[in-house]
């Protein structure tokens, strides 16, 4: 009975997702222009409406993609080990529809309502999976951060609505036109804080790695893969559309802020991810990294935006960042689903206790590897495409901008390179330790492949990763709408795929010079060809048959204890970047009769998240301490009460009795 309901729910979600996808594609491919729909008037003071333009449609597409996969994946997953499958199905439905609502909102009120609905539904998903104290705390932190963000957004929306006499986006735009510079920038910064808190921008990210893993895995996929994007949608919508001045470039301060925030988030996110042993937490931290990468592109586009004579370059940057949005949704969704299938089969999240799953769950393993390659920005998958575009944009703008901004772009470029390397290392670790080697626990020992619906969900996203990687030109066409809408000028595809859909070219190079262009498709073909050749080479000439033998462990009989653990794998980086990690370690030695005979060594170590310890912990401690102190001062004496009344009256009389 319950199972049927869960299935039905997910099928409905799937249907909704496909509907949304078709709608979005319709708008993006230009058949249907901008769609408008006025909702029944719920509140006297504001008219509510939906409006799907290019930008909305693109993000709607992102939502729909991952949602479809999650809907395929969900039922079996929930069936496996859910506390309250019905509640979670319901919450999931609300969650995705609210995300779609935010993307399609045509006015501030609809936006805010959907936005908060999104928060609440995801909160429900976070706390409903396992009722542990930890999850409760994670949910609390999440809710508080989200609420703080919303407070900032409220100011932005209400200020504009107040000036524009209406919540409708057009009204907000007209209101924004009349703004003077400082106010405009102040509002943008507020919006950045509001959306950044939801998007997990460092240092507002602390809730993310705690909350995302706590939800059921396909919900985590949606939170990490899509919800962050919805927040980014807000940044795009406000930065380029609503708050942007009608003429002239965007204020340089915006681009600077976004670009630097993006860089910091990218590096910090991946650095912290490297030290995680909880599969899902690791992935969550990578979301911080990728949001950073997306913001790098966005910030660059802001710096280059209108009226600096580099339209095509700005378009390139924006296209890179938008494409990465789509890509990250695809591969992060895939990875979370993969992690989920591991967890649902083993019940273990700590990768130290896994291992050897590649043989037991081959599908999951292959797909996870694919996702890992994609997220590490390795060719020939989609992650590489968007990062290549970002690199091109950065390099060309270095020359274009020059000076401090140029240097910033240069630094961003090198940091991006570092990020790529770190990500590769991180996923070599994650994949290797989780799926390869020998199983390190009975759970891993007894694991078996997940049911086909879950595999199907992953396949969908994997397909997206490969398709975007090999045929980037076609994905690029989807970006025409948003890029033209936000920056004007030529669309993305005109700029980026100048030499045909299979060739990417970093446009906007200096006059008279040939734009750098690559064809991932061709390279992939070459790769495949060479692989075949090599395979043939190793197959020929005939030789003695293949033998199996135990791994070389200096002559001792190999066991899973010889496997290199995740902690050990990340050790060099822990030392190199100890300034960031502030690693703590404790080694307890249990010696036998003589101090030289060691019975047992137990090692415990941890790294800290600087933002958490330096900012939030201190803030929390300070606030609670003050509150305690104030509260301690209140005596329950009635005379005090009366005195307060008397004094208040007297003061009020003294101050206000006379005009």
């Amino acid at each position: 009975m319950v199972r049927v309901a869960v299935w039905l729910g997910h099928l409905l979600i799937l249907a909704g997702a496909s509907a949304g996808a078709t709608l979005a594609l319709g708008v993006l491919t230009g058949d249907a222009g901008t769609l408008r729909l006025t909702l029944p008037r719920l509140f006297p003071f504001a008219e509510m409406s939906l409006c799907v333009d290019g930008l909305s449609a693109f993000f709607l597409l992102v939502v729909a993609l991952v949602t479809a996969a999650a809907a395929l994946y969900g039922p079996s997953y929930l069936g496996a080990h859910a506390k309250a499958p019905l509640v979670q199905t319901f919450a999931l439905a609300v969650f995705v529809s609210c995300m779609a609502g935010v993307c399609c909102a045509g006015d501030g009120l609809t936006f805010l309502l959907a936005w908060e609905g999104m928060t609440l539904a995801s909160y429900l998903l976070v706390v409903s999976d396992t009722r542990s104290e930890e999850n409760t705390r994670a949910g609390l932190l999440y809710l508080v951060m989200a609420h703080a963000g919303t407070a900032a957004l409220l100011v932005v929306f209400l200020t504009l609505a107040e000036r524009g006499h209406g919540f409708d986006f057009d009204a907000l735009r007209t209101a924004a036109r009349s703004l003077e510079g400082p106010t405009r920038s102040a509002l943008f910064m507020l919006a950045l804080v509001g959306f950044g808190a939801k998007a997990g921008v460092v240092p507002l990210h602390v809730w993310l790695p705690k909350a995302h893993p706590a939800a059921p895995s396909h919900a985590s996929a949606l939170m990490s893969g899509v919800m962050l994007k919805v927040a980014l949608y807000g940044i795009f919508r406000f930065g380029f559309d609503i708050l942007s001045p009608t003429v002239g470039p965007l204020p340089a301060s915006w681009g600077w802020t976004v670009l630097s925030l993006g860089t910091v988030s990218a590096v910090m996110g991946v650095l912290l991810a490297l030290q995680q042993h909880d599969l899902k937490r690791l992935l969550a931290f990578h979301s911080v990294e990728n949001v950073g990468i997306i913001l790098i592109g966005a910030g660059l586009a802001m710096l280059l935006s209108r009226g600096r004579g580099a339209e095509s370059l700005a378009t390139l940057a924006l296209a890179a960042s938008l494409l990465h949005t789509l890509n990250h949704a695809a591969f992060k969704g895939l990875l979370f689903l993969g992690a989920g299938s591991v967890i649902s089969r083993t019940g273990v999240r700590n990768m130290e206790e896994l291992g050897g799953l590649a043989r037991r769950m081959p599908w999951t393993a292959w797909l996870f590897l694919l996702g890992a390659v994609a997220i590490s920005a390795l060719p020939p998958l989609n992650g590489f495409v968007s990062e290549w575009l970002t690199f091109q944009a950065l390099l060309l703008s270095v020359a274009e901008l020059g000076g401090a901004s140029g240097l910033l772009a240069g630094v961003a470029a090198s940091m991006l390179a570092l990020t790529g390397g770190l990500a590769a290392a991180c996923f070599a670790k994650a994949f290797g330790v989780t799926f390869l080697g020998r199983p390190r626990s009975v759970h891993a020992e007894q694991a078996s492949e997940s049911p086909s619906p879950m595999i199907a969900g992953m396949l969908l996203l994997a397909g997206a990763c490969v398709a975007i990687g090999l045929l980037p030109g076609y994905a690029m066409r989807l970006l025409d709408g948003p890029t033209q809408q936000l920056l004007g000028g030529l669309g993305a595809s005109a700029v980026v795929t100048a030499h045909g859909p299979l060739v990417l070219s970093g446009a906007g190079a200096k006059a008279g010079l040939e734009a750098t262009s690559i064809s991932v498709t061709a390279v992939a073909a070459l790769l495949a060809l060479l692989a075949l050749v090599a395979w043939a080479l190793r197959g020929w000439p005939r030789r003695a048959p293949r033998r199996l033998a135990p791994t070389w462990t200096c002559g001792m009989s190999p066991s899973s204890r010889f496997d290199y653990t995740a902690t050990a794998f990340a050790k060099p980086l822990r030392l190199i970047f100890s300034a960031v990690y502030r690693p703590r370690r404790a080694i307890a030695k249990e010696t036998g009769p003589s101090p030289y005979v060691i019975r047992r060594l137990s090692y415990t170590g941890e790294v800290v998240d600087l933002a958490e310890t330096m900012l939030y912990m201190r803030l929390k401690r300070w606030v609670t301490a003050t509150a305690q102190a104030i509260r301690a001062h209140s005596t329950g004496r009635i005379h005090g009460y009366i005195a307060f009344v008397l004094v208040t009256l007297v003061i009020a009389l003294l101050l206000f009795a006379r005009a």
Partner: protein
Amino acid sequence: MASSLLWLTPLLSFAVGLGMLLVRDRRVLATLDVAGSLAVLGLTLAITNRVVQAGPVGALGIFRADHVAVLFLVLIGLLAVAVSIATVGWMRQELARGHMRAERLHYYYALVHGFIATMLVTVLADNLGVLWIAMEGTTITSALLVGFHGDKHGLEAAWKYIIVTTIGISFGLFGTVLVYGAAAHAQGGVLAGAMNWSSIVAVAPHLDPGIIRIGFIFVIVGYGTKAGLAPVHMWLPDAHSQAPTPVSALLSGALIKCALFGIIRFHTIARAACGPEFSQGLLLIFGLLSVVVATPFILAQHDLKRLLGYHSVEHVGIIALGLGFGGRLGTYGALLHVINHGVTKALVFLVAGDAIARYDTRDMRMIRGLMGIAPLAGTLLLMGALSLAGTPPFSIFISELMVIQAGLAAGRTVVVAAFLVVVVIIFAGLIHHVGQMVFGTAAASASREREAHLPMLGMLLLVAAMVLLGVYMPAGLDRVLARATEIIIG
């Protein structure tokens, strides 16, 4: 006919109260309770209907119901019904635990209805003197209810309550006298109903601003005490935490609002007499103070009901802010917030009462995993808390939205900023407390008896209102609110 309703309504509930003194049987009492409340609700709705149809209506020269009044009237009726339904279940638990003695039940019910009657008179009064008398009446009846358990803490709370609020109210009376004096002077000699709000408002622009200022200061400090505005709020957490839970619900949900009603009446006069800046400025200051002062006590609180008490302080502050920001939007938002907070706070108090009964403690550190042992109550508590904290799709979000927008419209950016910061902090505190109560695993000692669904009806009624107003504004309510706004800000 319609005019007679004005005095029939309080009279009815008073009569019900008196009648109860003669009854001993528990069931009959409960039935009378619910029936009486339902009748009151019906009558209030009838009055509302009349007012909406044909404008304000007066009676006996001292009663009058206009659009402002009916808002509060309906709120009282609604809460009366919800509370009396919930009382059924609560009373069972209390008797089971021996906190209530069966032979004293009729006093309890009688007092509750007397209390409701006085509140009705308060909002129906046109004559400011009658307003004051009824207000003092609420103090007396509810003070007895606060101390009803007769334990040390209850009596202490009752004493603080009656003493402090009586002082406050006497200030209110003095303010009333001054305004009356000014009015009588302006009208030249005493004429019929010189003490009636309606007639005073008529001449308000000609009143002497100097004396009105002093009068309004006395009123806002006086009735403000009763309404729980900081810094004269201190009795409130004591009383609201010690009172029997249904009474707490009424105190927080309805009584505070009656005091605000008094303030609003005088605010209208003061606005007309000395211009908006004066009274709005005062309201702004008290509002901000209340919101800020409540914060630390909410954060570092362990007693569930005290927590809710301080929350009432915060929300009264928000209402005052709305009035203080002024303008159509602010006033509208404040009035809407009166309804929203009344409904939500009553709900939360009732659910909290259930939780407290289950765990037999008010210490939030002892209450864990309510969701596990009482799913419905847990859900309601969570929803209520989220609503109190101002998250959509619950009603309070909408009114807070309006208040904030009004603040920005009034150009009070600093106040709004401070307000938002504090609200976020309070949100953190509240969700921290509630999250830990709702989730986690319950102690073995907690009672796991199945939830009786009939009493829950009362709460569900409130939840329905809470969610409905969060996602939709009925046209009728909107019209009443708009008209009431006009009445207040002219």
